[in-house]
């Protein structure tokens, strides 16, 4: 496999392709870029930036809680800290980073020239970035949201959250919703229509399946929170009564809407994690994951079930008992598809040939942490027990076990795994192991004691606690653990920064993995594949090559992609592909003005629309030379 392929592309053709798919030069060109790899890299870097910011806030909170009656942070700032931490991690890191990886990887993994709706993809990124910067800008100006990432009304409502803090939060939700929904459409379309010929649905890599399922979940869950946050901002700004029990609204309505989104949201963080796991385990076990169909069905089942258990966040409210029992059952039953996947992976490990590299270590840690988090999840699903541990540190422990164990560990593994593809260089293995072990130890040190703290009665979201209740030691331990995590993350950053220059050159396929992204250069050329591959099985790079190996006939002097059918990925037609454009960026700017303006006046929804309309018109305005080029390439079907 190491020898150059027999049908190597002539250098001239490669150069032409490169020129065709390149971005225009200069700063403007960068802003105009619609290359999914560029956008994906930016997306990932931005998400990690927010991860660091959110982590810093968490570290501050842990320092405040290190000892009882600590005076480092007052209640006002603390409320902003935990709100910003939760909001950042959920809306600005966990969901976007998964979509970011998808933006980078999915087109490569399905063997596509690029991503579907590339300008929309760029627009989604810019919106996300601007939303995040808006939130942090507000935070720095002391306009940081302070009603919790869940923003329960009436505390987050107009009467008890004066000023504009919660409005910035609600508008951030609008930003991330918009970005998330657009990305979901982009990913779904890419997976459905731009797969390499031959990659029928039953040959789609598990990671791509996970991202597809996630995208569908986003599509169904996000509108709920979009409604909810729009209602909130209308209540606050216009004086509507969605959540005002005094005028026919309901404070509990917010909780239903929020958790109808909020619980699936946990799964659209977790399911991509499962995708990472499958990718990593296959490569480092040197075999395909056992039980492909079971895995896919489990993903889909998880997605469906995840919409049926939002009420377990609300057991302490006064709801009918029968309903609660139903949600107990649903919350427990969702463990089954996850269990199936875990068992399949164990079977994979047991029958594989294990290669313990850093990505694999992160993947293996998943088993310990996620299974533990899953167990506490079962406990939280039980109504009576939840009534004791709900809103205590037990839940804090649980959710970090599930989200960090289920998503961040695989994510770090994924970073180590795909870093060479993105940069062409491997990350340092030695630093990676240090990184892993520090993270693993620090994580457990921080969060395991919180189980005990919660059972011993420590509620969440308290900026301090009295001495003498038996919480002091465990809190200190947790703070020490948090510092260890901080050290570990610093190491990761250092590793990434250093390896970008000094890392070992990776080559096309440093892990000898099976999926299509490794079939091209590292980092991949502008057009992804000099010749788009044709697929004959689930593990295209592991299977013996079969003819035809490549797609032929796509234009090289104009942007053109091959569109295939949804189920069997039969070549369907060639489609012209958009050129880079500055307008998505301008549109995002205009949208930002609209969104931020509507924090202060509802009229922004009127005058703010004008620039958005202008930018969108310019974006979609047919350019004669593009139309001509596409017409030139048109051929009658033979």
């Amino acid at each position: 496999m190491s020898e150059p392929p027999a049908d190597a592309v002539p250098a001239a053709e490669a150069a032409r392709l490169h020129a065709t798919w390149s971005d225009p030069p200069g700063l403007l060109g960068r802003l105009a870029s619609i290359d999914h790899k560029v956008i994906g890299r930016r997306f990932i870097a931005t998400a990690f930036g927010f991860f660091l910011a959110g982590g810093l806030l968490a570290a501050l909170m842990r320092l405040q809680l290190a000892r009882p009656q600590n005076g480092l942070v007052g209640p006002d700032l603390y409320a902003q800290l935990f709100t910003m931490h939760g909001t950042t991690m959920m809306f600005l890191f966990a969901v976007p980073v998964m979509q970011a990886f998808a933006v980078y990887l999915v087109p490569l993994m399905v063997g596509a020239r690029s991503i579907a709706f590339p300008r929309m993809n760029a627009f989604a990124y810019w919106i996300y970035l601007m939303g995040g910067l808006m939130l942090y800008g507000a935070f720095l100006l002391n306009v940081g949201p302070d009603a919790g990432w869940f923003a329960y009304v009436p505390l987050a409502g107009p009467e008890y959250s004066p000023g504009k803090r919660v409005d910035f939060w609600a508008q951030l939700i609008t930003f991330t919703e918009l970005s998330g929904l657009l990305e979901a459409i982009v990913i779904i379309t890419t997976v459905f229509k731009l797969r390499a010929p031959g990659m029928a649905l039953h040959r789609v890599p598990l990671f791509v399946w996970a991202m597809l399922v996630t995208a569908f979940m986003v599509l169904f869950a996000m509108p709920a929170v979009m409604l909810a946050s729009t209602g909130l901002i209308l209540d606050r700004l216009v004086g509507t009564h969605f959540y005002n029990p005094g005028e026919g609204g309901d404070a509990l309505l917010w909780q239903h809407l929020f958790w109808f989104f909020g619980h699936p949201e946990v799964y659209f963080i977790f399911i991509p994690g499962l995708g990472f796991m499958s990718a990593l385990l296959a490569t480092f076990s040197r075999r395909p994951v056992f039980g492909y169909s079971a895995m896919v069905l489990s993903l889909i089942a998880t997605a469906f079930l995840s919409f049926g258990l939002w009420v377990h966040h609300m057991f302490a409210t006064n709801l009918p008992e029968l309903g609660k029992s139903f949600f107990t059952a649903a919350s427990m039953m969702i463990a089954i598809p996850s269990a199936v996947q875990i068992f399949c992976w164990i079977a994979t490990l047991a029958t594989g040939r294990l290669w313990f590299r850093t990505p694999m270590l992160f993947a293996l840690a998943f088993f310990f942490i996620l299974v533990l988090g899953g167990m506490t999840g079962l406990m939280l699903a039980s109504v009576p027990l939840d009534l004791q541990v709900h809103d205590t540190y037990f839940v804090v422990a649980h959710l970090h076990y599930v989200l960090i164990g289920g998503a961040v560990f695989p994510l770090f593994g994924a970073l180590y795994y795909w870093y060479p593809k993105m940069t062409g260089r491997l990350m340092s293995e030695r630093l990676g192991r240090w990184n892993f072990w520090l993270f693993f130890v620090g994580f457990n040190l921080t969060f395991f004691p919180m189980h005990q703290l919660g059972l011993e009665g420590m509620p969440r979201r308290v900026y301090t606690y009295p001495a003498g209740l038996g919480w002091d030691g465990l809190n200190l331990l947790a703070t020490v653990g948090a510092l260890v995590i901080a050290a570990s993350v610093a190491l990761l950053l250092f590793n990434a920064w250093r390896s970008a220059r000094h890392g070992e050159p990776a080559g096309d396929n440093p892990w000898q993995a099976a999926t299509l992204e490794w079939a091209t250069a590292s980092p991949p050329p502008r057009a992804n594949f000099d010749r788009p591959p044709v697929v004959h099985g689930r593990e295209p790079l592991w299977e013996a090559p079969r003819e035809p190996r490549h797609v032929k006939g796509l234009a090289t002097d104009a942007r053109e992609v091959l569109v295939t059918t949804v189920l069997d990925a039969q070549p369907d037609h060639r489609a012209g592909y958009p050129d880079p454009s500055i307008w998505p960026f301008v549109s995002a700017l205009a949208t930002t003005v609209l969104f931020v303006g509507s924090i202060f006046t509802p009229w922004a929804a009127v005058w703010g629309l004008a620039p958005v309309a202008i930018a969108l018109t310019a974006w979609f305005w047919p350019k004669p030379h593009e139309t001509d080029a596409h017409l030139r390439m048109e051929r009658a079907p033979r």
Partner: protein
Amino acid sequence: MPSSFRATIAALTLCRASRFERRAGVETARGRPAHGIALLLTVAAVLSATVHGATGETRVPQASQAASAPADPADGGWPMATRDYANTRYSPLADITPANVATLKPAFSFRTGVKHGHEAAPLVAEGLMFVVTPFPNRLHALDLARPGAPPRWTFDPQPQPLARGVACCDGVNRGAAYDAGRVFITTLDTQVVAVEAQSGRELWRRRLGDISRGETITMAPLVVKGKVLVGNSGGEMGVRGWIAALDAASGRELWRAYSTGPDRDVLIGPSFRPYYAADRGTDLGEKTWPGEAWKTGGGNVWGFLAYDPQLDLLYHGTANPGPWNPEQRPGDNKWTSGVFARRPDTGEAVWFYQWSPHDLYDYDGVNENVLLDLPFDGRRRPVLVHPDRNGYVYVLDRASGQVLSADPFVRITTSTGVDLASGRLKYDPRTEPRAGQTVRNICPHSPGGKDWQPSAWSPRTGLLYIPHQNMCQDTRVYETSYIAGTPFVGAEVKMYTGPGGQRGRLTAWDPVSRRPAWSVEEPFPVWSGALATAGDVVFYGTMDGWFKAVDAKTGRALWRYKTASGIVGQPVSYRGPDGRQYVAVLAGVGGWAGAGVTHQLDARDPTAAKGFAAAMKDLPKPESLEGQLYVFALP
């Protein structure tokens, strides 16, 4: 008999009668006037027979003969706000009839120069008309004998201005009382002042309450057996209600009965025999309240009082418990929103009945009690007819306090009826206010099916003419603090028009057959009192400034006159020194219902004036906010 001759006789009788009365009142402190009255009654009976013989009918139900004692049926005067002890507001004058009322013309007029709601009834005695204004409670005596009735004197009690800040519903006054050559007025800052009728000289004055705690007096006093009876207002300020008796001659306080608290404060003693078991027990005025809530529990006495000389019983309602938010006062909250029968000499309570136990909506129980003798189950019974704010017309045996009947005269969603066995109002839990919740469709609204505006009773038609409103509301109660001198309400209210689309009504109610005979609709609440006359004409005023006359038997509109301001006063009818029948009313919009206009409240706030300002925002701003007396007569 030619009518001019009849008039002369009547005028002569009037002059003699008043002279006689004055002398009797001055010379004998107690008891003596009865002789005079008896004498007068004889004369009157003869005269009345001749007068009424012409129209030739007497109806079965009668205003209690005994109860209407001091007001001589033939006497064309109007000595107290409701004319007689029985609260009938019935004038025996019959010159004005449905046939000629259309020719009624203004005779003279008088401007008071005051801008609050003029809810008072002008009084007529000794050839003078006494007009008491709202705050600053000036008393004007108009000389009826002189053309144009120019003021003879004006008495200014100079009440403290800050009383206006604690008066819940505009600084109104509901009238004075005349007795034996003296006029008694109450002032907003809780004083009772006795003024010599002829000269306007102050005889005595007495302060009965503390305005800095929110206490005010708005009611019309009643003079019974040489005692001036008054009660306080301030149920919206956490003021503990009471009724007090002052010696009419000296102003000395003879007794004071509270509406809440231990029995000794309420003047409940061994002779207290309430009809229903729920009202029996010791210290219920304390035990039906949590903690010390009774001390700020309201139960004020600000409605019209009634007196039955035969039974020697004084009847007075008690107002709503405070605060409005019922959750702050679990229990029956005795003795609020009910009616007491007391001995006027000692104040001792004889019986009590609670219209609205644990009142949920500010349904004060102070509406007038009209004392009648009605046939009930085949026999004539002394009864008390009471159209309550809670929407029922009650008929009680006024000797025992037994409820004989209770029938809705408006649409009611707050209760489903009155259990006659236990006497208890059956609340509808669907409209029960609960803290933190907005309860919708509460009918009638807080001012009730009918508020203070007194009804009139015509013995000729056997109908009770109830001026009332037809409105509903949404309420949200919340926990409120008692801070002395500030409101103690704990409720926000939005009012709106009730079913049918008209906010006001004049309903003619037949208490025997227990149903309305007819009803006239008005766009605005009928916030004025009613007047019934022996000529079978019923008068009332509207808040948009019309003074109207309708046929007592059918409700047919007969006549109307547009005044410069809305009418919330009480029309009266009297025979002038010239022998003619006059009808008088004060115009001057205000009161709770008119506060939005009077005080230029902001109707954009639906809770302004506890909901009334916005519900009345289409009330046209009158030509003048100042009060004006209108007196009408046939040409």
